[in-house]
């Protein structure tokens, strides 16, 4: 009896399980049955070329572009049909591709809104800001006055204010100078060391592999590979065909 149950239930240490997701933009079929799993305390890197469906996968998970069919489970709860704000409040932090920094809000207001929406106190903010000293020096600056690196840090800090179990990031290294990419990577390593699971979409494969415990490769809306970084290393054909690196 118990063995039958365990066959159907997700792995005991799975935090996020997405199964057979099909997503459309209007009539165009973008995701053709994508499945992935993020285990507790681990980082899953979602890799692939431009247009492979990586961002759509993330948007489907948080409900911004709801799936037409498939199932998404987070912390043993079915969140497939959750409105976005409910999934966020249940413990998913989301950092979108364009960072989503508001030009007409100050840094403090960005953080205040996140605290208010997730019913967290200022203590949570002070705790998170220990990771982002440069953000705390710029509390009165407006979003548009921040550099790209500062915006990225603010976007991550804001997502952490809800004290999420899972942090989802869409290309955090995009448009950043190499030294800032290293800074973002180190910050994410510290966040992961603190016990937060990470689902990371990246074009920068080196950075992604520095963080990842497992890797899923997407192409044209389907999963082409899932395994550990070492297993990916052993498959140059996958790297060549779907990532463009040998």
């Amino acid at each position: 009896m118990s063995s039958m149950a365990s066959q159907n239930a997700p792995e005991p240490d799975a935090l996020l399980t997405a199964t057979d997701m099909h997503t459309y933009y209007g009539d165009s079929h973008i995701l053709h049955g994508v499945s992935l799993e993020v285990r507790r305390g681990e980082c899953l890197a979602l890799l692939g070329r431009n247009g492979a469906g990586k961002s759509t996968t993330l948007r489907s998970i948080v409900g911004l572009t709801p799936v037409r069919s498939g199932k998404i489970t987070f912390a043993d709860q079915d969140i497939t049909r959750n409105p976005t704000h409910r999934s966020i409040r249940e413990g998913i932090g989301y950092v979108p591709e364009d960072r989503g920094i508001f030009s007409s809000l100050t840094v403090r207001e960005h953080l205040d809104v996140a605290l208010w929406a997730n019913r967290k106190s200022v203590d949570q903010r002070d705790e998170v800001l220990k990771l982002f000293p440069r953000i705390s020096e710029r509390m009165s600056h407006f979003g548009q006055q921040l550099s790209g690196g500062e915006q990225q840090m603010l976007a991550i800090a804001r997502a952490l204010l809800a004290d999420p179990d899972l942090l989802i990031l869409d290309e955090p290294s995009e448009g950043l100078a190499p030294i800032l990419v290293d800074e973002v990577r180190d910050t994410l390593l510290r966040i992961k060391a603190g016990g937060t699971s990470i689902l990371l979409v990246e074009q920068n494969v080196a950075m992604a592999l520095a963080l990842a415990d497992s890797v899923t490769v997407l192409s044209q809306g389907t999963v082409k590979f899932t395994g550990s970084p070492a297993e990916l290393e052993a498959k140059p054909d996958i790297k060549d065909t779907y990532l463009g690196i040998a």
Partner: protein
Amino acid sequence: MTFFLFNLLNGLQLSMLIFLMAVGLTVIFGLMDILNLAHGAFYMVGAYFGYVVFQTTESFWISLLIGPLLSLALGFLLQYYVLQPLIDRGRTAHLDMALLTFGLLFFTIGLVDLIFFETLGLTFMSIDKPAGLGSYIDIGIMYPTYRLFVIALGLIVALAVWLLLDRTVIGAVVRAGVDDREMVRAMGVNIYLVFACVFGLGCWLAGLAGVVAGAGLSIDINMGVQILIPTLVVVVLGGLGSVKGCFFGALIVGMTETLSQAYVPALALFATYLLLAAMLIFRPQGFFGRAPKTV
């Protein structure tokens, strides 16, 4: 000089009345991208319900307090249960929303006509001004006290709206929503509830303007359409979604209407539209309009 001051104050009074209308309309448009032509209906509802409350209680102040609440409730329900579900089903074009809300405006006019004129036989209706605001005051000229009250009320509401939007976390949510609605949802905010509250609040302001007008002017079946036109001009002049622009836009339109009527009556009928046309040609985004986006 006396004549000028008198008209200046009249212009200011009209400006404040239009501002009460336009500020809700512009924030609703900026945040939700809905052109709510039914805004005139909420003004009417405020005035007529305010009249009913006044007839029952014989108090202007209670009528001012209770009258706009019906507009608030109806606005909240309209956004939450009618407009938002339609938007979720893909009816997001400005034309869809404009047609629907325009239809609602005429439905409201018809319903009010059926109740108050056809059924109750009421024609000339107004709310009595409260004791103390019903006469004239000497401020260099003899000027109606009630009109000064309207000016003060408008300025207080303008200040309150500015403080709410600029200084509170709710205001930050609204400003963030004007920049990027999707990101606000992705921060854990139930944006549908925020939308409905803002919509309701905008309608409450329209209802407030309705009660105020019901005591200063008169209550009739065309009042909703009449106020809607200068209100739309203000929203275009100020820049869609801009509260500051709305305030200055209201001043310009109120003054233009009043002063052209006083000094160049031949111009009065189309002075406002001249202003509107010039704005659309030379600065279509309005005085304070900008491209709202995340950086």
